[in-house]
């Protein structure tokens, strides 16, 4: 992958997030405090402004810069988590001019690990990790198997979708929805929805013949 792919992904994610405004927003109003969409949109906007600055950088440095910028932009619970993800990806890709798919998958896994340790959370706690962990595992498996890009993208998007929906039936033990106890059941976790939207958007940019 090249940094140009990151820029295209940023643009795709921003568009997809905006297109899903009302759903993301209403999910965080239902079991959170109503700011998740705004937080994520603020993050997307600042990344759009960062495109020129990261364009000349190798992917690892680009991810690092994205992470640091998001860290001082998003705030809330999602801010440090998403930032940690990109900072860890950046570290994982340090010195690699053009990472291959296996390296990318390893970096993605490092990013997810960073979220786990920053958020002290794991699978089944009704957070964005319920989408990210299975997607990361599948990504590593498919990358190692050398699956063709369109298939890989399709499967990842489907995995994200399925796991996003699965958060609906959970009670939360981490994040703001944990305050609600049983009342959180029946609502999809907003952070999971955001991750699903972002993953699907990135997959879409990749599926198309480059």
């Amino acid at each position, binding site marked *: 992958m090249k940094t140009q792919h990151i820029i295209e992904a940023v643009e795709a994610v921003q568009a997809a997030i905006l297109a899903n405004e009302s759903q993301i927003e209403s999910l965080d*109003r239902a079991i959170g405090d*109503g*700011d998740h969409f705004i937080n994520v949109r603020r993050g997307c906007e600042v990344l759009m402004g960062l495109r020129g600055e990261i364009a000349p950088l190798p992917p690892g440095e680009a991810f690092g810069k994205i992470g640091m910028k998001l860290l001082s932009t998003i705030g*809330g619970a999602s801010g440090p988590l998403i930032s940690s993800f990109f900072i860890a990806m950046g570290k994982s890709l340090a010195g690699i001019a053009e990472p291959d798919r296996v390296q990318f998958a390893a970096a993605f896994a490092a990013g997810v690990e960073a979220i786990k340790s920053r958020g002290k959370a794991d699978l089944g706690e009704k957070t964005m990790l319920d989408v990210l962990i299975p997607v990361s595992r599948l990504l590593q498996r498919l990358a190692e198997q050398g699956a063709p890009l369109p298939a890989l993208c399709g499967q990842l998007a489907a995995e994200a979708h399925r796991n996003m929906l699965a958060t609906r039936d959970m009670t939360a033990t981490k994040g703001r929805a944990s305050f609600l106890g049983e009342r959180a059941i029946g609502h999809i976790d907003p952070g999971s929805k955001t991750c699903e939207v972002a993953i699907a958007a990135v997959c879409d940019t990749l599926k198309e013949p480059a």
Partner: protein
Amino acid sequence: MKKFVNEVDSMLREALSGLIEAHPQLLRVEFEPTFVARREGGANKVALISGGGSGHEPLHAGFVGRGMLDAACPGQVFTSPTPDQMLAAAAAVDTGRGVLFIVKNYAGDGMNFQMAAEMLETGNATVLVNDDVAVENSTHTTGRRGVAGTLVVEKMVGALAEQGATLAECKALGDRVNAATASMGVAFTSCTVPAAGRPTFDIGPDEIEIGVGIHGEPGRRRAAHMPADEIVRTLLDAILGDLKPQAGRQLLLHVNGFGGTPLMELYLLHHAAGRRLKAEGLAPVRSLVGNYTTSLEMAGASLTVTLLDDELLALWDAPVHTAALRW
């Protein structure tokens, strides 16, 4: 959404400008990154820094000043501030005696402050406030929230820091006050996050939310509206069940309005709660009634009780000079 606003995006900046212009001798503000600090720093003391999402005013910027905080880091409405804000605030107010972060226990606040603490090169410690007994405590979960009891921690630790105590002493006192403090709230209406433009939750004309936080998030359960005395009983049962005070114990009773409830009703609640506490053989010897830890324009209120001893009583009574709390 009817609010006094020009552009939603510039709201926080305009409000902070107004705060500073209203208290020019007391406060200064920096933007990019944003923090509010005492106008006059300089005293050789542990620096107390708090912060959190905006929308809870006067918490925290209204508590910056002599005898309380050295700086506050306001995030966007209901959104934890970012670590660069804490680092900039720390650089501005650290006198070399170390920095104590006072943080309400939320996933977002915890992580952002923790990242700041990790990056900070000078000595620092963190007090996590988690006084909300509406939420069950557990080490496997995010745990209890920090709500109106945060003010009590900030006031008492602020007084101790002003006396020249060490970072370790301030941290220990903060944990002690937090452990002696319990709160619970009830809401009649939701609030409207400016950027969202509509109420966070819908609620019927005869329903109330019991065990709400301070972000317009729904509470633990919805109930039919009930008389004030019954609400007070519900809240105090949970609070006293948690604190388990001995008979005769001296207490601080803090009745906190969420923003949309008239002061008259808050005083009525204070009367009801005081009566109940005395009936239990307890001694509410200090009181604070008003809108201190708000949730924008939400109607409702919380009760906070802090168990006092001679030290805490003296720290509460110690002089304080901030925009919102002064004696």
